């Protein structure tokens, strides 16, 4: 008896069917692997990576250096202001030879010099921290919002913003609190994820703008300090009355560290109430 040995061989699939199967699996695979666009297909909302660890660290060190500077400067500025007030109250004049007036004048000069010296010592640390924050965040914003997204995508980005979210910056763009408090708040919001409905893109833009403006103010203060020093000492600036240069420097330092003191003349817009936009008309609405 002849036994026919049958070898189990895999069924041959025609090349055409193999090609179709390969094409289909590629399509499915690509759709699973993800959309190359930053806009998610499901939610139509872009995904962002604006705050790498370095930004959080730079913010933290910026807040620390601001705090250090504030602590050092607060007493000096307060002392100088009270000495100036005393000088005015005593009705000391430019040519006054009264020993009391001369004493106050000498004290004001010393305090002012002390302030300039402290600023000069601490400015580089702060500048470095601010520059790092501004530079890292600027690059991230340019890459994520500038090059990956269209202007219409930016609108899609801010769609999810909570109606209760308030900007850290005021309407006028001026900071009204201490610099360390503002930086600390930013750091907390990012590091602890306490954005409280605040939109990430708006938050990044606010931090970047603040860092850039602070750098500009630091430049201004530095040039004011060097001008004060190159003028050949305090005697040429202090002519019996606070000179514009001296006042400008003190004001810049105060604004930088303690924020805008004058109240804004532009009223904040009325916050929207609880009503939501009716969605019945979505078919006639552009995305």
């Amino acid at each position: 008896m002849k036994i026919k040995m049958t070898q189990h061989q895999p069924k041959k699939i025609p090349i055409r069917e193999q090609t179709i199967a390969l094409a289909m699996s590629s399509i499915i695979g690509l759709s699973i692997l993800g959309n190359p666009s930053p806009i998610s297909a499901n939610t139509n909302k872009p995904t962002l990576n604006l705050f790498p660890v370095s930004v959080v660290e730079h913010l933290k060190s910026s807040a620390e250096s601001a705090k250090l500077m504030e602590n050092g400067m607060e007493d000096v500025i307060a002392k100088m202001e009270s000495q100036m007030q005393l000088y005015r109250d005593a009705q000391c004049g430019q040519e006054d030879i009264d020993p009391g007036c001369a004493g106050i004048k000498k004290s004001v000069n010393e305090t002012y010099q002390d302030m300039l010296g402290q600023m000069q010592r601490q400015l580089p640390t702060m500048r470095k921290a601010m520059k790092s924050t501004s530079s890292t965040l600027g690059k991230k914003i340019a890459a994520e919002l500038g090059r990956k997204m269209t202007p219409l995508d930016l609108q899609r980005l801010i769609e999810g913003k909570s109606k209760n979210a308030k900007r850290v910056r005021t309407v006028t763009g001026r900071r009204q609190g201490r610099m360390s408090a503002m930086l600390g708040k930013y750091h907390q919001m990012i590091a602890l994820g306490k954005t409280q409905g605040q939109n990430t893109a708006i938050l990044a833009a606010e931090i970047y703008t603040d860092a850039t403006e602070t750098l500009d103010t630091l430049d201004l203060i530095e040039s004011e300090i060097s001008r004060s020093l190159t003028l050949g000492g305090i005697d040429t600036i202090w002519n019996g009355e606070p000179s514009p240069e001296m006042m400008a420097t003190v004001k810049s330092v105060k604004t930088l560290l303690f924020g805008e003191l004058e109240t804004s003349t532009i009223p904040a817009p009325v916050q929207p109430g609880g009503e939501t936009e009716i969605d019945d008309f979505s078919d006639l609405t552009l995305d």
Partner: protein
Amino acid sequence: MNQSLWIQIIARTMVSFVAATSITACIPKTVKSAPTCLTPETKHVDQAFEQARKSLSNRACYYQFDTVHSQLIEIAQGDPSKDNKKRFYDFYQWITDQGIISKNQSKMLFTRYFTTQFSNALPDNQNTCSHRSTKETMVRNLAQEMKYKKVGLQDIIGNRDLYFRAVSKHNDLVFLIETTMLACNT
């Protein structure tokens, strides 16, 4: 046939032709009168929409769409109500169905006046950095859209909440665009 006979035939034919043309010239012609394309004049919103539909139902009056639309916008401002949003929505649907404007134009108008979206003023063709040279135009267009939204959201449907939401979105957009452009320059 001789030559004189030919001359007679031609002469008679010409006489007949002249006579025929003279007779038809005397018959009064029926002149087609141009359609009257009236624009809504009433201050009553519902009646205004009715008149607008009636006028635009005539194909010869399609060209009047912009005028009719402006009239409706003006009339509706005189009687702010949340129902106006639905009135305009239905009207835009109707004119699209009539083929007077396209679906996209219809969406553009509805979005412009009655939503908090600024899609009409924001390009979607190139990345944000590429629009650096046209930033000022973009910001101006956003401001113009905001004016339309004031008319639509506040003056026509009387919804100040939505209007303030549009203001807030406008400010956020301008801030975000300007900051992004600044970052693009670095």
